[in-house]
């Protein structure tokens, strides 16, 4: 049978349902020409199958431009807004942390995520809509059972007209297709073979799924079990270096500490801190008393965490017997003292602290006898105060809150968790803190207090003083009355109320 011969659809399969009429062409130009005629005849459900893209076929088939660009544009806008919203909600609403002095809602740092999510969202949308609009995935089509149609991927060009097309008539459409001068015409009938999944496919899938579960279960097992053997390194990066890491053990020294403390009796270059007022917040000579008060309030932690305090304590001990005895009485108190302190802070918050109770507490307050400085050893002006504000917001506000009422996000979260290990920081506006001289506040910022760690190593002394200055300004502002406000802005304040 020659290729050009047109075979009429066989009639003995009339019991089967006709789905397509298939016309075969040998040249791209022929199929392009034929497609124009099918388009002009007004058919709706038909298609052209070619081994490669043909220029102008969209126009010849009367295909409208795809709407994918609009969908992708919409997806891009939605993704971009989602990315922004995600960052806005986490950074501004849920966890407003001040990070390196940047505004809480800082658009520039949001841009990379917005950019990436916009690209991701639009790319995935383009891919998914392309698949869906092409009505894919379609696992079976009666066309695919046709031997002749297989050449659509090699060297033949086909037009199929769907039997569901409103213009379709069994005889008329066949005649119409014959006029297009195809090299072959064939009827494609519905595929009645079973739609059931082959048995081996089920078992193969099952085995594949089981095999796929192995790697994640190994990972889970590894994560849940402790192991003494070092992890397997594919890429070493810089994981193994001939150096000691912080807080590790070294056999080089008798005390097995890799981190070396200062040699007793020496001061490192540039660390000669002679000015007691500036570096420790006490009047000259009051240093030993700080050490004692520290050792009392810190209790058993002091030898590890507060090296300096421990050393100066020893000195004080050797110098005078009297101070030694005083020390021992102080040292016997810590547990009692801390309970007192916490009860006192509770009182202060309730605002019902009585005179007597307060006096009692202050009598046992170890910081009481220290000659704290009461004036600032730095220049006091607005610029320093604003610097203090910035530093306060970076370091302190996460626990103490922006206004000092102990309502920072960390405190909030810790209170929600109800673990019992968290001590709520004392409000700056409680009487207990209001009374403290600036030197004592500076000492607290430097060395910490109770659960609060010292910020000696993070914040230079000038900035610690600036923070204390801001703290005093904060206390003053919270206790302010209308008379403190300049005349000219009082009216605006009244209006605001």
């Amino acid at each position: 049978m020659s290729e050009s011969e047109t075979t009429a659809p066989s009639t003995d399969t009339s019991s089967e349902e006709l789905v397509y009429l298939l016309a075969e062409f040998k040249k791209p130009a022929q199929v392009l020409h034929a497609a124009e005629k099918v388009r002009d005849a007004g058919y709706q459900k038909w298609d052209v199958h070619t081994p490669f893209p043909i220029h102008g076929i969209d126009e010849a088939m009367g295909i409208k431009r795809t709407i994918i660009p609009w969908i992708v544009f919409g997806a891009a806008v939605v993704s971009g807004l989602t990315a922004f919203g995600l960052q806005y909600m986490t950074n501004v609403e849920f966890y407003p942390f001040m990070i390196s002095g940047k505004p809480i809602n800082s658009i520039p740092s949001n841009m990379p995520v917005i950019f990436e999510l916009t690209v991701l969202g639009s790319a995935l949308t383009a891919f998914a809509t392309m698949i869906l609009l092409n009505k894919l995935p379609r696992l079976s089509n009666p066309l695919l059972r046709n031997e002749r149609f297989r050449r659509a991927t090699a060297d033949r060009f086909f037009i199929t007209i769907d039997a569901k097309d409103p213009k379709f008539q069994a005889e008329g459409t066949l005649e119409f297709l014959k006029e297009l001068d195809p090299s072959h015409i064939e009827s494609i009938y519905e595929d009645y073979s079973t739609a059931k999944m082959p048995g081996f496919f089920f078992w193969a899938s099952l085995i594949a799924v089981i095999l796929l579960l192995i790697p994640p279960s190994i990972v889970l097992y590894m994560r849940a079990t402790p192991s003494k053997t070092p992890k397997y390194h594919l890429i070493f990066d810089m994981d193994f270096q001939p150096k000691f890491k912080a807080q590790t053990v070294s056999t080089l020294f008798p005390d097995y500490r890799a981190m070396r403390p200062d040699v007793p009796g020496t001061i490192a270059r540039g660390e000669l801190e002679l000015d007691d007022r500036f570096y420790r917040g006490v009047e000259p000579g009051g240093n030993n008393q700080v050490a004692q008060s520290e050792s009392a309030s810190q209790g058993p932690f002091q030898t590890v965490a507060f090296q300096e305090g421990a050393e100066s304590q020893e000195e004080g001990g050797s110098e005078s017997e009297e101070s030694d005895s005083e020390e021992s009485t102080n040292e016997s108190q810590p547990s009692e003292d801390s309970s007192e302190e916490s009860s006192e802070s509770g009182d202060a918050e309730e605002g019902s602290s009585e005179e007597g109770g307060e006096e009692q507490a202050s009598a046992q307050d170890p910081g009481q006898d220290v000659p704290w400085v009461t004036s600032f050893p730095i220049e006091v002006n607005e610029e320093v105060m604003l610097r203090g504000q910035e530093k306060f917001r970076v370091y302190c506000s996460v626990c103490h809150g922006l206004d000092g009422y102990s309502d920072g996000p960390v405190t909030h979260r810790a209170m929600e968790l109800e673990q019992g290990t968290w001590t709520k920081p004392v409000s700056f506006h409680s009487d207990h803190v209001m009374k403290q001289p600036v030197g004592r506040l500076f000492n607290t910022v430097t060395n910490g207090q109770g659960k609060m760690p010292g910020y000696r190593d993070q914040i230079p002394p000038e900035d610690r003083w600036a923070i204390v200055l801001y703290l005093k300004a904060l206390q003053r502002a919270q206790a302010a009355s209308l008379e403190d406000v300049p005349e000219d802005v009082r009216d605006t304040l009244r209006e605001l109320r």
Partner: protein
Amino acid sequence: MSDTSSPLKTTPKLEELTGRWLLLMIAGVVCLSIALVLGLFQGDSLSYFYHSYLTSFSFFLSIALGALFFVTVSHLVRMGWGVVFRRLSECMAASVWIFIPLFLVILLPMLLPLIGMGEMKVAYALFPWNAPELDDLTLHKTPYLNPGFFAIRAVVYFAVWIWLSRYFFTKSLKQDENGNKDLTIQMQSFSAPAMYLIGLTYTFASFDWLMSLDPHWFSTIFGVYFLAGAACAFFSAMIILSYLLQKRGLLKEAVNVEHFHDLGKLLFGFVCFWGYIAFSQFLLIWYANIPEETVWYLPRFEGPWFGLSFVLIFGHFVIPFLGLLSRKAKRVVPILFLWAIYMLVMHFADIFWLVMPQYYHGSAVEPAEIGIPFGVIDLLCILGVGGLYMGAFLKTVGAHSIVAIHDPRLDESLAFKNT
């Protein structure tokens, strides 16, 4: 292998226009002279004139360099679709010679310190690192930033640019005559090393001529930023030129809407690229917040420059991004033409923003008092340098065909269709 038949029926030429090159050049020189005289009356040792002049100089130079970049890339990727634009790009790139005399205007007074006259303020009217007394930081940069080495580098840049642009231009012209396809192969092999030279010279030229206006500041991405802007400028200029030539009835056989569509796509692409690079530069500096880096953005956040910064964000990226996104904007040529003019204006604003704040920076003028920092001198400088560059372009085109008529890929370019 030779083939002297061209797919084009007629050879398009610019003959009646190219005769006017001398007129344009004279007009350019006149404009610049007036600007210079007006600059003298400013009483700031020509500092304003030089800043304004450098703005226009960099603006038109970036078009020429963008063209050289395009020609080289087109060979590197064996471009088919855009062969119809190649000759015009070659001419735009080969006109780079006009910038040598233009650069001498900047360079000559800078050489005064070499003959012991460094005290004259005109020697450092533009580049503060050429002043007789420097601060410590600038002093440490003098092994690189000194008038002698500066001049040597400028010679190298111009030598490379003229060599590369003449290479592609002459080979392409030769192919017009004999249709030898081997010439295309030669240019292809040459384009890869040429790309290295382009990358290095563009980077260092922009460091020298634009970034060193503030010798304290540095940004390693600056060269890429300049290239991104230059590519935007070139594609805009190419769209404008092709459209105007078509209006005069030229180039009609060779260029059609499909070609404009692709130029529009590339313009769109480089608009995005510019936005990406500009933001990358800003984000790192903003986030690190180190004074030696933020020092450059600080004056641009004050006075009229703050407004101009926002004009750039929206005008140079957001608006053209949305405007050129649509297929229609790129295929309806008059609309694309308007976008190209718009982008060229924006590119000028970009260069203006790079250069002009440095004039006011450190001067006694408060940012709030600057007002609208654009005047007659700026306009005359644009007209002057523009006239000279366009004159040089017409002179370079001369009697040559404005399409590479025997390029082996011209067929492909003519039949090009966007699917």
